[in-house]
């Protein structure tokens, strides 16, 4: 008995369930709306001013905020960071805001890593095991001449495929729509990579220019990794709770907590070990400050990897042993 037919089964069920197609449709629609929104915004405020003046004004404004000292700790860190970033571009005469299709595609991975991709991953993961319990088909699935571990592994493989496909499709659609709005060329444009926050100050010593496509590959890789981790944890809740609704509810609550917690309790150090806090890592890879100071990309990758592996270990352990009484 080879493994591939089992994965084929799981992919077939995922595809036929409509849920998958609906999610992909939501993804396409959302990206479309974001593109339209940005185009409209640009039209209204136009680029009647020289971008240099605009950027210089922006820097001056932020310096002012910083001097007044009325900013929260997290805001101050972000403001100082932005000042350094914009100054860097000004010094090299690069427009930091100029949009292109490729730039928008890379940006998709950043903005989608806060919530969107993870929500979509949960929609797949929450369902993939618990729906078999809900429909009673688990009784047929687990009475085949195939060990339970292999059955679960085939579901995990299908889930990881779906997650990868979703991230990839997001990138392709963002490029297609972004290109329509701002042109398809620009994969070779230099982007600055390597900003690092060291305590209060920005360390730009490691900053270097790399082609955008190289940067995009890395960013999408990180987005995929974070999304796959959410998938693995959602997979576990699906196994443990055996109910799609309960599993989705739990995971959504966790994700929302992850977006709130760094804002309301930025000084609580421990949260950097929670998986939700580490999810926007593509964004702080490209230069945004991390949710909690002291976090960087290797740290987040390690934390997420530990969470994912632990979730999978629990899933396989429980699934192989538990009685099926559905």
């Amino acid at each position, binding site marked *: *008995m080879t493994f591939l*037919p*089992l994965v*084929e*089964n799981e992919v*077939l*069920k995922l595809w*036929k*369930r*409509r849920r998958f197609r609906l999610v992909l449709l939501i993804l396409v629609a959302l990206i479309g709306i974001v593109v339209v929104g940005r185009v409209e915004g640009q039209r209204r405020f136009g680029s009647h001013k020289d971008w240099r003046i605009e950027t210089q004004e922006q820097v001056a404004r932020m310096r002012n905020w910083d001097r007044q000292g009325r900013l929260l700790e997290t805001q101050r860190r972000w403001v100082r960071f932005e000042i350094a970033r914009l100054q860097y571009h000004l010094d090299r005469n690069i427009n930091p805001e100029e949009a292109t299709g490729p730039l928008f595609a890379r940006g998709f991975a950043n903005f989608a890593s806060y919530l969107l991709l993870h929500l979509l991953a949960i929609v797949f993961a929450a369902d993939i095991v618990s729906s078999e319990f809900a*429909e*009673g*088909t688990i*009784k*047929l*699935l*687990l*009475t*085949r*001449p*195939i*060990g339970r571990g292999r059955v679960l592994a085939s579901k995990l493989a299908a889930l990881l495929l779906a997650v990868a496909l979703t991230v990839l499709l997001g990138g392709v659609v963002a490029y297609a729509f972004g290109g329509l709005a701002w042109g398809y060329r620009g994969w070779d444009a230099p982007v600055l990579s390597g900003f690092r926050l060291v305590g209060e100050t920005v360390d730009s010593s490691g900053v270097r220019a790399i082609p955008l496509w190289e940067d995009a590959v890395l960013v999408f890789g990180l987005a995929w990794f974070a999304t796959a981790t959410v998938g693995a944890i959602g997979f576990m809740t699906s196994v443990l709770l055996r109910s799609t609704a309960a599993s989705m509810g739990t995971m959504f609550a966790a994700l929302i907590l992850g977006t709130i917690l760094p804002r309301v309790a930025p000084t609580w150090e421990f949260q950097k070990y929670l998986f939700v806090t580490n999810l926007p890592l593509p964004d702080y890879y490209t230069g945004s400050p991390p949710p909690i100071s002291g976090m960087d990309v290797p740290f987040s990758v390690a934390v997420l990897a530990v969470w994912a592996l632990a979730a999978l270990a629990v899933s396989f352990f429980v699934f192989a*042993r538990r*009685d*099926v*009484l559905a």
Partner: protein
Amino acid sequence: MSGPDLSAEHLTKSFGSRVAVADVSFDVAAGEVFGFLGPNGAGKTTTIRMLVGLAHPDRGTVRIRGLDLARHFAQAMAHVGCIVESPDLYPYLTGRENLQHFARMLRGEAAARIPELSRLVALEERLDDRVSTYSLGMRQRLGIAQALLGAPDLLILDEPANGLDPAGIREIRRLVRTLAAERGIAVFVSSHLLSEVEQMCDRVAIIHRGRTLATGPVAELLSRSAKGFRILARPPERAAEVLSARLATPPEPDGPEAFLVSLPVEAIPEAVRALVASGVEVLGVERRASTLEDVFLEVTGGETV
């Protein structure tokens, strides 16, 4: 293959403090239809879940063709086709897609059997419709086709008559008998319907409150509890006296002038002569066909199914 196709040894399962199945043992041989009879909640489904590895027994062993299910799950299950509780299939897939799905989980040429099996369960014409549009009877039949995909040596069916109309039940009965007789498949059927088990099965185990109360060939169980004959006689007091003298157990009153007696048919003329000789008027002697219901009432101490 020597030995039974399916053998359950001392199966025991508790949920918390509630004992669902206690020390249940039985064997099912090739070509035999074995009925597992009991009221709802008696422990039938829990037992079946243990037979197919969905639940793990606290104590006891399941062997399928000699293979210990707990240790050689995949090899053992390669011999089994089953429906547990209800024939749940994927409602958003067509009948054919469902069968293909489960065929991919089996070794060999399972997919090649789909046309033949869909003909066998009379679903050919609806095979490319979604299962969500099927009636309960059609789902039950598709479930049976699914169970037969792997050309099993052992078929385990949980309440196969559920949701079927009388014609459908007859159909299933005929199918099960054919499979056992022509292909030598061992069939394990659970049911709470006495008449169904009586007509379909060679041997029966009666389960009640998690325990098997009686196991044996249907004919033997029926004769064991046979009340045999119903005798109408007047005056009843005198008749009871005469009959008591010739019986191991006292005659059971069954109306004002009627008694049920367990006697072999050869002993009946002699009993009638004795009654007449004692001045009892014999108004009638009827042969009474006993049913599994009688057996059931007897072994459970009067609780109905």
